[in-house]
């Protein structure tokens, strides 16, 4: 995390992302300016096709803006090469996906330990920290289970444990409740609130205004443009 409290975790300046399909140019994000402060819980809300996934890819350093500047945790993302992006994903970002995206046929413990592999952490230490992360999420009795043996809610909690195990500066969640029943969904949102109260920075991307209520601020995307920020 940034050592300077006043420095935002995320700063987007005039960011655009235009998909070049060969025939036509599809502008998925246009002139987006956004700041997310350290410790903030932000929801990005918008209907389908508004550019949410594009936003998530850029914030998550999976993709680069076509133009504009993106500073994450004091790093100029738009200037980095592929390895530099991988390094930021490894050190500064924890993803939570709608479809969980756990490694199939791999135990919960190994799934949660996997991000530490790419930080060069020793196996013993990886397993110790994965075990601790799973225990924090109430999954102590599920460490040896493979994803197909877990319910959707449990899988998503494994996914959250995996996102947290590296202690990232930013937790980035894309429709984390989209595949869950309302009960499990509510549990996951409660979990995010708890994490937020412990000081973690969270960006939650959703099409669902009710889900966005969990955050303490929401911004709205429409046709690739950010609407004026309104308090949630």
């Amino acid at each position, binding site marked *: 995390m940034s050592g300077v409290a006043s420095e935002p975790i995320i700063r987007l300046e005039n960011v655009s992302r235009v998909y070049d399909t060969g025939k036509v140019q599809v502008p998925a994000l246009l002139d987006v300016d956004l700041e997310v402060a350290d410790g903030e819980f932000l929801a990005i809300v918008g209907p389908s096709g508004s550019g949410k996934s594009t936003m998530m890819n850029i914030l998550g350093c*999976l*993709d680069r803006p076509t133009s504009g500047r993106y500073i994450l945790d004091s790093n100029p993302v738009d200037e980095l090469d592929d390895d530099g992006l*991988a*390094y930021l*994903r490894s050190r500064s970002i924890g993803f939570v996906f709608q479809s969980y995206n*756990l*490694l199939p046929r791999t135990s919960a413990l*190994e799934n949660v330990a996997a991000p530490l592999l*790419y*930080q060069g952490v020793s196996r013993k230490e990886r397993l110790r920290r994965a075990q601790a992360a799973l225990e924090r999420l109430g999954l102590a009795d599920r460490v040896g289970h493979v994803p197909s043996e877990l319910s959707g809610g449990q899988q998503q909690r494994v996914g959250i444990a995996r996102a947290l195990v590296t202690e990232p500066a930013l937790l980035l969640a894309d429709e984390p409740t989209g595949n869950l029943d309302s009960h499990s969904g509510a549990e996951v949102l409660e979990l995010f609130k708890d994490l937020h109260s412990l000081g973690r920075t969270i960006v939650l991307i959703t099409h669902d205004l009710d889900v966005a209520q969990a955050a303490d601020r929401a911004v709205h995307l429409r046709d690739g443009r950010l609407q004026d920020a309104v308090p949630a």
Partner: protein
Amino acid sequence: MKITDLIGLAFSRLGTGKMRAALTMLGVIIGVASVVALVSVAQGATKGISDRLQSLGTNLLTVSPGFTTTGATRGGFGTATTLTVDDATALAQLDGVQAIAPELTSNKLVIAGTQNETARVVGTTPGYLSVFAYDMWVGSFLNQASVDHNLRVAVIGATTADNLSLTETSVGSTIFIGGLPFNLIGILQPKGGTTSTDDQVLIPLSTARQLFVGSNSVSAIGVSAANQDVISTVSAEITATLEQRHGITTGVDDFSIATQAQLLGTVSGVSDTLTLLLAGIASISLLVGGIGIMNIMLVSVRERTREIGIRKAIGARGRDILSQFLVEALALSLAGGLIGVGLGVVASYGIGVYAGWGFVFNPVTVVVAVLFSLIVGIVFGVWPASQAARLDPVVALRYE
């Protein structure tokens, strides 16, 4: 990533698809096993042949008639009649010659009691025993008196004795060669092997000439040199002597000289070619095995596109993905290689014991085969692995 982590990933992956891993390895297993086994067969066969050649006596020179190295055509081996008994006598006088054994060969029906077979009947002299390095099993060999007096005595090889149901108690009995009675005076020790060296009947040279051939010509002259160092000198002396005796000035000889050293050289030359050929054929199956690995790795990269996307999202760099898939391919090919070596060694042992040259184990072949399978893994694993490494994480994560 640490190499231990990569190996751990590869083995946990192979562990989840054992059947597929086994089938993928099969190509390499068969390839490496056939390289190891075929090379061992080639070397074992060579060893068998050279052992047998060596058992004929390493100081041996064989002079044969009618072999012209520069002539356009020549008759069948030994059909010419240019070598005579007198030539043989002359060769016996040369420096460095220890013993000679002229051979006058014909095939005759041999009868002993109720048994009979058509055997190679060789008229020769007492020198035969030492020139061709035979030992007596029972009885005695032809002596000078039997040659001097055209005696009807015979010594038979071990295989001939078996075929005719003759044992040590048969020495002194009468056998019939070409219808004529001979006194059996001895049986030779077997030399082993399956060639005709143990299937022959030896009678005095003079007797053979008188009863069966009727001319002064011999089919070959065996000459044993005093030691290996003088073989080339003796060979030159023989050439000079025979050229002089036959009045040859053109350099086109009506005889030829073969030494054991030459034969051994020829055999090892043939054997090297044979080994190379067999190894080459077997390498093709190794190549096919490598293509099998590449095929499975390409399928695997496609199937695991989403896994690759996930790994990139949680921090894997391109080279982490590359090494993961490369180590998987290497693990497959190396495991296949090691199993193949095991099977190959077992197969060469079995073949060696069955064929009678024993167990020929060549560590060089094993090391080369294992290295080769590693190279196969790298060569055929790199492309699928780099395909995996180059995947765009956004696209890979969306992949269903």
